């Protein structure tokens, strides 16, 4: 069987994306997508009390995770952990079922969670959290496995954690950490993730890497836009903003962003009119904004919408998979907002504004 696979890969290296099993993965992912909660569920969930919501989640696809964690946790924490666990299991499954170039692209994308977990561990150590607390917050959806990550959180000091990561790409950034500059290191790690992704798809050869590159670059644009909005609105100096801007955007290249940086907020908003994202946000942005929640939800929404319309144009490619990853993350995010919001007795209107449906 192995010999046969070797032979088929050798004989047609370019034909189906260097031995990638697109048909299998996309069909499976589409079936997985059909298991996601439909959008009509959210208004229903909003009308339920916290007990009804917990019951609803217990009966949904998260059942197994809730059952397994029910011994250790209870209340809202249980569901938060169950959601995280489900996310980790689902994304690890995506890595496990894909082959070839597809596997490479998905793993690169899911490095986000490796960085998330490393940041969580460092943050936990920074504020002296217990090993259990740190372990609970880890989402091992990337390449680093849960046993490895929990062995990191068991280490006494941040130096030994960083030493344990010496073989990884994160080491050069992490070794700058001196126990105090955590936020700087976190920003560096995020930048590293996006530069890593851009270099992965720097010279896209196959059709799939091209699509993936477009997807990533749109995401970078959206990240940059929300950074710009947040910092401009808070009146941060342009040099400080420039440090946080990611390179490699699709419509907003670094040069164009540099032009936007010195402008005051109102002019900055007007100059966005020439970009395609304006269509989605034009109804919301004003020259003076108190809250950016609505804008950020709208940006995320437009990202998800463009991914799902793309996934119909390129059915046998990486796009449906990325679309699923976005939708799944969003679902977990929404459920968490509803649960946490209800538990904190927040006003329904506030919760509804935060949801991306």
């Amino acid at each position, binding site marked *: 069987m192995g010999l046969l696979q070797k032979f088929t890969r050798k004989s047609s290296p370019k034909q189906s994306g260097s031995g990638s099993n697109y048909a299998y993965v996309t069909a499976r*992912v589409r079936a997985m997508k059909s298991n996601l909660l439909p959008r009509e569920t959210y208004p229903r969930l909003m009308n339920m009390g916290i007990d009804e919501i917990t019951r609803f989640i217990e009966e949904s696809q998260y059942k197994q995770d809730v059952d397994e964690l029910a011994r250790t946790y209870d209340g809202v924490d249980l569901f938060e952990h169950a959601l995280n666990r489900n996310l980790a299991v689902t994304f690890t499954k995506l890595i496990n079922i894909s082959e070839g170039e597809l596997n490479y692209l998905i793993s690169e994308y899911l490095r986000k969670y490796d960085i998330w977990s490393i940041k969580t561990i460092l943050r936990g150590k920074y504020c002296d959290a217990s090993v259990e607390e740190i372990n609970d917050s880890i989402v091992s959806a990337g390449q680093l496995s849960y046993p490895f990550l929990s062995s990191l959180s068991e280490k006494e000091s941040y130096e030994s954690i960083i030493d344990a990561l010496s073989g990884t790409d994160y080491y050069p950034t992490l070794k700058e950490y001196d126990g105090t500059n955590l936020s700087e290191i976190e920003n560096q790690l995020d930048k590293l993730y996006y530069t890593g992704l851009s270099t992965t798809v720097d010279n896209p050869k196959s059709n799939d890497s091209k699509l993936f590159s477009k997807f990533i670059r749109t995401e970078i644009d959206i990240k940059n836009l929300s950074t710009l909005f947040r910092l401009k609105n808070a009146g941060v100096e342009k040099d400080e903003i420039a440090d946080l801007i990611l390179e490699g955007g699709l419509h907003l290249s670094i040069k164009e962003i540099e032009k936007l940086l010195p402008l005051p907020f109102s002019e900055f908003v007007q100059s966005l009119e020439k970009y395609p994202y304006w269509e989605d946000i034009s109804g919301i942005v004003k020259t003076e904004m108190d809250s950016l929640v609505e804008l950020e939800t709208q940006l995320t929404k437009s990202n998800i919408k463009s991914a799902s319309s793309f996934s119909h144009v390129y059915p046998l490619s990486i796009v449906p998979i990325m679309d699923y990853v976005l939708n799944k993350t969003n679902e977990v995010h929404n459920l968490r907002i509803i649960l946490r919001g209800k538990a904190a007795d927040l006003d329904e209107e506030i919760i509804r504004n935060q949801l991306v449906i």
Partner: protein
Amino acid sequence: MAVEAVAYMDPAGLKAIGAGLAVGLTGLASGIAERDIGSAAIGAMAENESLFGKGLILTVIPETIVIFGLVVALLIS
């Protein structure tokens, strides 16, 4: 000498070769077509078992190619 050999070739043999090619090539073609559909069907079924019926039907649709091949082979021989 060579000309004589061609003259003596049995037409039934050529027919048999044609029929063989018709079934063989169409069989390969259906195999190639079914490869991706089959793996997609398995993928969908792994997530949702109720798709078994649909998956099975879609997987065997390219089977028509080889049936046409078989019909042609029967017509030839």
